[in-house]
């Protein structure tokens, strides 16, 4: 068995080596991500104390089921993303390794200040990854908001330290067993604000449109799927396992999550641009996951996060490829790449019928979208039905009403998007080949197949969710204030 600290140390070490061996950065990146993707399956569970300093004085890494499953998803998806984009990764190979080390650290650390350090490492790597899109104004805005968020987080952590005298999460959870005074909640709200930047909650998500609205097949899945998922899992750790909230603060933060959920879905409905639809949907899903974590539905929130991460991985990658489509008459083959003359075709009407030309991509995109829209047979449906079931069991009827209403909006814009992408021509008229967009895009067959396989996993998990239920239960059991433990497992209701 292998110590979990290797998941952080190996990518960081190889990243520094890659600076010395600049011509070998790609092979080194491949080695780092592949080793991590294998090592994550054989690491020791439990607490790993760095430097053997007695708790709570030393830094501790905590690998329980909750963080282990997140680590597996993170490292496997990260490796896939690197493999699928290997051709276009030129200058940022070292940055990607630093990002991987930082994200692994975020999921494992049991220390609030160490969490800040990993937040900064992964945030700085994210700034550099986003900068590959050359939209520097958006990068600058992202950096400013990100740094302000980090300052808020650190301010909150120091205020908590001054009250409790520890930065160790386990120790703080022990000391914070009962609801505290208003002085306790100010730092918690500051920490919430700090994490709200990366979890894309209002009002700290101003960067999302600029960054994800211009994303390609690397930046989109990285920021919209992997980073987002990791930050939500970290949020869940802090707010379902460490901090104790009173009713007023829980309601206040829940309102922010609900406003994010509603604003995200409404914004997605009101736009016709492909990447904007996805990014606003991502904002809404973050709002939903945060809402569930805040109200104690830890296991269900984990399912929401994983379903969203898988779906958004496929969607952002295909959207990144499709929106860089070009007309054959405009550019000869590959000329657009050589001359960097790619036009962004983001409006779904300009991409009408593009899946008729690329049915395999269409199937993968449709399955991920329909899972996101919570249609039966897909993993998203199973997750959404359990969200509602858990809430009804607890006698909560307001939140399910909001979630159902937003799900309707979500279903409407996703179906509208799929209809246009599959079926060219005007509404009510028969689709013809002439109406199909003249745009084309190149995509590797390997990418097609991998995305199709991931999308099929969403169907498999939708039909047979036992595997997901068991993992969610185990993950939820590690969260102190998790209350969701019963599930709808079978067709037609609970057994």
């Amino acid at each position, binding site marked *: 068995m292998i110590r979990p600290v290797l998941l952080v140390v190996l990518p960081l070490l190889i990243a520094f080596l890659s600076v010395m061996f600049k011509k070998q950065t790609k092979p080194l990146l491949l080695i780092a991500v592949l080793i991590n993707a294998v090592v994550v399956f054989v690491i020791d569970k439990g607490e790993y104390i760095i430097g053997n300093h007695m708790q709570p004085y030393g830094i501790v890494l905590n690998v329980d089921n909750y963080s282990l499953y997140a680590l597996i998803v993170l490292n496997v998806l990260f490796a896939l993303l690197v493999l699928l984009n290997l051709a276009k990764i030129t200058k940022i190979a070292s940055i990607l390794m630093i990002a991987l080390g930082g994200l692994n650290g975020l999921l494992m650390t049991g220390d609030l*200040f160490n969490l800040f350090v990993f937040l900064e490492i992964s945030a700085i790597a994210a700034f550099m990854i986003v900068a590959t899109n050359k939209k*520097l104004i958006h990068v*600058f805005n992202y*950096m400013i908001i990100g*740094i*302000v968020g980090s*300052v808020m987080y650190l301010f909150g952590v120091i205020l908590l330290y*001054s009250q409790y005298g520890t930065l160790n999460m386990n120790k703080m959870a022990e000391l914070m067993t009962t609801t505290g005074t208003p002085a306790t909640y100010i730092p918690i709200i500051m920490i919430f604000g700090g994490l709200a930047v990366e979890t894309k909650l209002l009002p700290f998500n101003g960067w999302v449109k600029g960054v994800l609205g211009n994303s390609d097949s690397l930046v989109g899945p990285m920021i919209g799927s992997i980073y987002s998922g990791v930050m939500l899992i970290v949020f869940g750790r802090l707010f379902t396992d460490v901090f104790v909230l009173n009713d007023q603060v829980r309601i206040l933060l829940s309102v922010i999550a609900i406003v994010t959920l509603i604003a995200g879905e409404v914004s997605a409905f009101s736009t016709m641009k492909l990447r904007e639809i996805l990014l606003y949907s991502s904002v809404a899903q973050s709002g939903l996951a945060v809402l569930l974590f805040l109200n104690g539905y830890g296991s269900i929130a984990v399912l929401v996060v994983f379903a969203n991460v898988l779906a958004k991985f496929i969607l952002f990658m295909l959207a990144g490829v499709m929106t860089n489509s070009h007309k054959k008459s405009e550019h000869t083959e590959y000329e657009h790449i050589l001359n960097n003359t790619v036009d962004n075709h983001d409006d779904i009407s300009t991409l009408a019928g593009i899946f008729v030309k690329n049915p395999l991509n269409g199937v993968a995109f449709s399955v991920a979208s329909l899972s996101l829209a919570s249609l039966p047979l897909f993993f998203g449906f199973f997750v959404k039905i359990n969200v509602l079931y858990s809430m009804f069991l607890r006698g909560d009827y307001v939140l399910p009403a909001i979630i159902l209403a937003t799900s309707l909006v979500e279903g409407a814009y996703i179906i509208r998007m799929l209809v246009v992408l599959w079926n060219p021509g005007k509404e009510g008229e028969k689709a013809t080949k002439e109406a199909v967009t003249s745009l084309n895009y190149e995509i590797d067959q390997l990418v097609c197949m991998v995305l199709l396989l991931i999308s099929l996993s969403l169907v498999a998990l939708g039909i047979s969710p036992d595997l997901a239920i068991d993992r969610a239960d185990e993950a939820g059991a590690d969260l102190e204030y998790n209350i969701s433990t019963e599930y709808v497992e079978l067709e037609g209701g609970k057994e």
Partner: protein
Amino acid sequence: MHIVGIVLMLIGVYGLITNRHIIKMIVSINVLEIGLNIFIIAVGYGENTIAPILTKSNINATNFADPLPQALVLTAIVIGVGTTAILLAVARKLYQQYGTYDLTEMEGK
């Protein structure tokens, strides 16, 4: 000293909100971070405490200042320098691209 830190942080936030000049925004970010660092140091300070360095003369002393915030501040300063360096690099690239440091003018071009 807590108050000094908080006032500096507020000045930094004010600078960020009211400025569209990217260099001034970077300076504001730095003021914000310095305010936070002073606040962290203030948390570790106590009346009649001595520097947390063990020497022959204070081997039996029990009134050391809390050393942890000082260690945290060192890390926070290093991270702050790193982020400032990246911000300045992006600012330089933006200037090369747009010929101005004003965000409003950049967005108009």
